[in-house]
């Protein structure tokens, strides 16, 4: 059993290899996402046109349709994978996901409110702005209730409260919607998709997502220490109030920004960290980057699949991830049922 001699360098090597592999997968999925779509596109020619700034149709398709979609898949998937890994490590629960503290629900409600108020008709860009605003409000609400001197369970309970409030308000808006068409439009938006987004959408979502991801990455060390429990983590020099604040603001910005621009894309934040955890030897800090890249790869791949599936109308991305993700959750519960008493 004494196999201590060469194991540490080996795990570090395999970690680098894993990150390199995931990065390659992300790159491949990104390029595929640019190349695959509904119309035929001579990808090479389009790229050449874009690079020499020729206003050809194919260049337009590439920059106006394909590129925003691929970029959103990249950023949103990255944010969801990262937030899921942070959430599971912080709550020390493999069934946790980014939505658990209510931010996604709030962001969805913010966007729905923009729909309902008719502001969305003024400019579709107000949709993500409303979503991000609502996510931030929810974040401040969580701060107020569970920010400074509260326990982790208070945070979860506050999150559940925020979540159900947001859900109730979305239902209220649907209930009050003036006509079935408006309600249907809202419902479809809620299902989550990257279709018909422009580079401006990307520009709106990227700053909060990037800032939020930085805050989430900053929790890495504390998450390792938290594997030993909250008191031990505190005794190792980590101020858990700081960790909690980074977590809430990080999720509010990253996941809020993601949901605001794409709608709810479930299960990425649950499935990806869980699949990758064994590959990083269960170390919470190492899981963050891996899960972020994995989230991006999976989201891009799912968005490619959505476009390849011959359904009419196009399946919403959130529907596909849920259909794949829910059975996965089932199998996870099945496997964990003995451990989680």
């Amino acid at each position, binding site marked *: 059993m004494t*196999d*201590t001699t060469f194991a540490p360098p080996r795990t570090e090597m395999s970690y680098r290899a894993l990150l390199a592999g995931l990065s390659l997968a992300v790159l491949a999925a990104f390029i595929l996402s640019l190349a695959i779509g509904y119309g035929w596109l001579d990808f090479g020619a389009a790229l050449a046109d874009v690079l020499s700034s020729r206003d050809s149709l194919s260049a337009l398709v590439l920059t106006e349709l394909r590129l925003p979609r691929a970029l959103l898949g990249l950023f949103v998937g990255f944010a969801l994978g990262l937030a899921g890994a942070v959430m599971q490590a912080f709550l020390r629960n493999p069934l946790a996901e980014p939505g658990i503290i209510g931010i996604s629900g709030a962001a969805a409600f913010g966007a729905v409110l923009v729909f309902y108020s008719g502001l969305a008709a003024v400019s579709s860009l107000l949709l993500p702005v409303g979503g991000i605003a609502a996510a931030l409000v929810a974040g401040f609400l969580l701060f107020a209730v569970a920010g400074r001197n509260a326990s982790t369970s208070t945070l979860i309970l506050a999150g559940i409260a925020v979540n159900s409030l947001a859900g109730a308000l979305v239902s209220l808006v649907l209930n009050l919607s003036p006509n079935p068409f408006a309600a249907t439009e809202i419902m479809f938006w809620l299902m989550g998709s990257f279709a018909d987004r422009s580079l401006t959408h990307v520009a709106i979502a990227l700053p909060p997502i990037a800032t939020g991801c930085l805050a989430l990455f900053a929790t890495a060390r504390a998450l390792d220490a938290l594997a030993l*429990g909250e008191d031990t983590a*505190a005794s*190792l*020099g980590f101020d858990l109030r700081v960790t909690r604040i980074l977590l809430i603001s990080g999720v509010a910005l990253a996941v809020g920004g993601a949901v605001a621009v794409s709608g709810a894309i479930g299960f990425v934040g649950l499935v990806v960290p869980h699949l990758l955890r064994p590959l990083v030897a*269960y170390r919470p800090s190492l899981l963050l980057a891996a899960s972020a890249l994995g989230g991006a790869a999976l989201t891009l791949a799912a968005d490619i699949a959505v476009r390849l599936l011959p359904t009419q109308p196009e399946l919403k991305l959130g529907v596909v991830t849920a259909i794949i993700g829910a059975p996965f959750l089932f199998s996870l519960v099945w496997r964990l049922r003995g451990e989680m008493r």
Partner: protein
Amino acid sequence: MIISASGIGVKRGDATILESVHAVSRPKEMVGLIGPNGAGKSTLIEVMAGLRKPDLGHVFYDGRLAASVPRRRLARRLAYLEQGAKVDWPLSVEKIVALGRLPHAGVFSARNRQADDTAVGSAMRAADVEGFAQRAFTSLSGGERARVLLARALAVEAEILLADEPVDALDPLHQLNVMELLRRTADGGTGVVVVLHDLTLASRFCDRLILLHRGRVAAEGAPDEVLTDRIVAQCYGVRSLSGTHGGRRFIVPWRRASGSWSEPSEEETEPEIANGHGRVVPFTAAPSRPMLDS
């Protein structure tokens, strides 16, 4: 480092957990923190570790007020072993022990990797967990887990080690292993404070005992002075068989001191028991009136 807790008072709601408690930990000294359930032992050790602010009183680290010592710096000098600690992921033993080096890390990476490796290695050797360094924590037995978590605390290479019931739920052999390791740690220069329920282990391994009873220090001093039959009966509500072996007392709780669950009272026949040398000595009766409330 010397920890000095002075006039500590802790309240939880209306209940008083600790009241004007004084406790000191010095280098090379192993202090046993004993007392019945709910006496405030864990709370006191949390206060000493800086994990909980007392409502009254102050904790000093080398004479400096706890609030003025940055948490990160304290973490390098003080290690804390949580009661009934568990690890939530199947991390390898080695990675868990290495978590003890987190307080020594720089902002982005290890500050001194060689020092970290040495500390982790010697902590694993001391706790005898090298043999399963690559196994997942979740696959270990209770005794192995306890040693791994102790190795994690030792890897901090702190000047003070505060351990809350480290032998909780261990078999006798593992209890002795852990206690001997703590003893060696103290002999090596570290100040050790350990919460214990086993009075014989407390007597056998500790230099000094602090007996808490209902949130107050009921007795403090050398094990012989603290663990008299009278005091044990008074605080724990049990009659004990006791004796001396190799200059150390052993105490075997034998039966409740009276019909009630917690109130000891003087009564009836005194059993005769053997001490460590096989001689029969008379049992010392419980006192007829409370002697500790001063």
